[in-house]
């Protein structure tokens, strides 16, 4: 099947499915300024976060997430807003090492006032957004799609309707030469043996089992009874009884394709195929890992419903049950509840999801994009340490 895709070709060979100007504050204190600029200039998005320059054990993870997000191929260009600290400059340096797209740095101490910073950034944003708008999509191969597989607010139908239907779409894309990435380590616990059995080589299989074991021992070490949060209260109301049950259903998003590789949080897949990425169960934190790992489109299945989007990646929402879809059609794109109602087969729903991914890759707006949802959250592993700058 010839690729019907049209996308933005980056000079380093990667493909963008969007072409926005990213306004990226490197200190939480500049988040509001970034948001204002993005709201004022069409074609811009802002990435808001709560990191304030903490130099602690999480620094490498935070740096990797912010630099990786800046280098996502969906960005036409990036405007960094900084307080001019060394850690911020390090993030910019790392981003420049990954992407060849235009990067502008504006520092508050250098410009002297928020007003000047805002004016300068707005001027740059208008100029870059104009450039971005003038750029045309060109025919792209199937490998241009780097799909993220996500689920949140699972119910007992997740593993029967939306997740396996997404698995059908993912399998088709992988077979055509695209990349598909499953995340959420919490949500494959109890199903990792099934993914390991599909690994292309023994090492990959061992790696995924070890990754889940690492997570499991960290939770046991902290003495947390995870059953309070996993499955969540919403999951339990929906009919899921154990974490393993949730995982068996969640893993169905990855279909039956062979597992090409296993990625650490925010790692970039090196070649097409199906991957697993170590991400937390928190939907928005895990989307940040996807964005930093250069995923350019996401399908998000939900049983309970969520309006979540991303500043960087279009997020297609699929409901697992029809009553939820009907209740919140303004933020859910597709309904897979039709499978449980006996109206559609798994393959038919999977084909609809596949077609939607292609349409969105070619520029069709998702509901989260229409609604302006640009959620972003940094994933941290350790206690936050007060930054030296303000202590």
């Amino acid at each position, binding site marked *: 099947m010839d690729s019907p895709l049209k996308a933005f070709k980056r000079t380093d060979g990667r493909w963008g499915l969007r072409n926005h100007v990213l306004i990226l504050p490197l200190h939480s204190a500049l988040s509001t300024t970034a948001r204002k600029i993005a709201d004022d200039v069409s074609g811009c998005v802002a990435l808001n976060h709560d990191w304030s320059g903490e130099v602690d054990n999480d620094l490498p993870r935070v740096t990797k997430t912010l630099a990786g997000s800046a280098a996502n191929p969906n960005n036409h260009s990036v405007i960094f807003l900084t307080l001019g600290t060394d850690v911020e400059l390090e993030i910019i340096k790392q981003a420049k090492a990954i992407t060849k797209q235009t990067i502008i740095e504006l520092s508050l101490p250098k410009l002297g006032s928020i007003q000047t910073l805002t004016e300068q950034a707005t001027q740059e944003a208008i100029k870059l957004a104009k450039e971005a708008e003038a750029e045309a999509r060109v025919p792209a191969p199937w490998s241009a799609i780097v799909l993220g597989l996500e689920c949140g607010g699972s119910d007992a139908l997740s593993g029967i309707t939306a997740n396996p239907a997404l698995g059908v779409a993912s399998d088709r894309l992988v077979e055509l030469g695209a990349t598909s990435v499953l995340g959420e380590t919490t949500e494959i616990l109890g199903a990792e043996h099934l993914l390991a059995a599909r690994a292309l080589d023994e090492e990959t299989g061992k790696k995924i089992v070890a990754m889940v074991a690492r997570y499991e021992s960290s939770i046991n070490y902290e003495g947390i009874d995870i059953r309070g949060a996993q499955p969540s209260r919403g999951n339990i109301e929906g009919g899921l*009884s154990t974490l393993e049950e949730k995982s068996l259903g969640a893993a169905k998003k990855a279909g039956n394709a062979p597992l090409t590789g296993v990625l650490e949080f925010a790692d970039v897949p090196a070649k097409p195929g199906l991957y697993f990425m170590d991400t937390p169960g928190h939907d928005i934190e895990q989307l940040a890992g996807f964005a930093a790992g250069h995923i350019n489109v996401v399908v998000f299945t939900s049983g309970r419903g969520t309006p979540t989007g991303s500043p960087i990646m279009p997020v297609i929402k699929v409901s697992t049950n029809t009553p939820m879809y009907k209740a919140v059609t303004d933020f859910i794109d597709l309904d897979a509840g039709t499978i449980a109602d006996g*109206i*559609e087969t798994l393959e038919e729903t999977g084909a609809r999801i596949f077609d939607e991914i292609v349409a969105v890759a070619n520029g069709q707006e998702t509901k989260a994009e229409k609604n302006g949802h640009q959620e972003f959250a940094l994933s941290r592993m350790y206690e936050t340490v007060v930054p030296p700058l303000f202590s």
Partner: protein
Amino acid sequence: MYCEPVMRKLLFLDPSDNIAVSLADLEIGELIEQDGTTIKVLNKINRGHKIATKEIKKNDGIIKYGERMGHATSDIHIGEHVHTHNVLGDRLSTEQVAK
């Protein structure tokens, strides 16, 4: 592409399973005859929840999609609601942490 809805009340996922998923809200005493099986519903069971399709003994595995998803914390009879009140995950449970 669309066909007439089939009004199934239960979804059997794998032949080795000892549970089925309800596709409708089930009432106590309801008799379900479907796919060659007859089950009398013993509890009120909401859509999306599980019902026992085989006799399950305490500590037996609960099997869904042909895979073990936890174990029974009490004996469970055919037609009974299978959920957190009589099922516990095998991993990351409090007992395991206490060990």
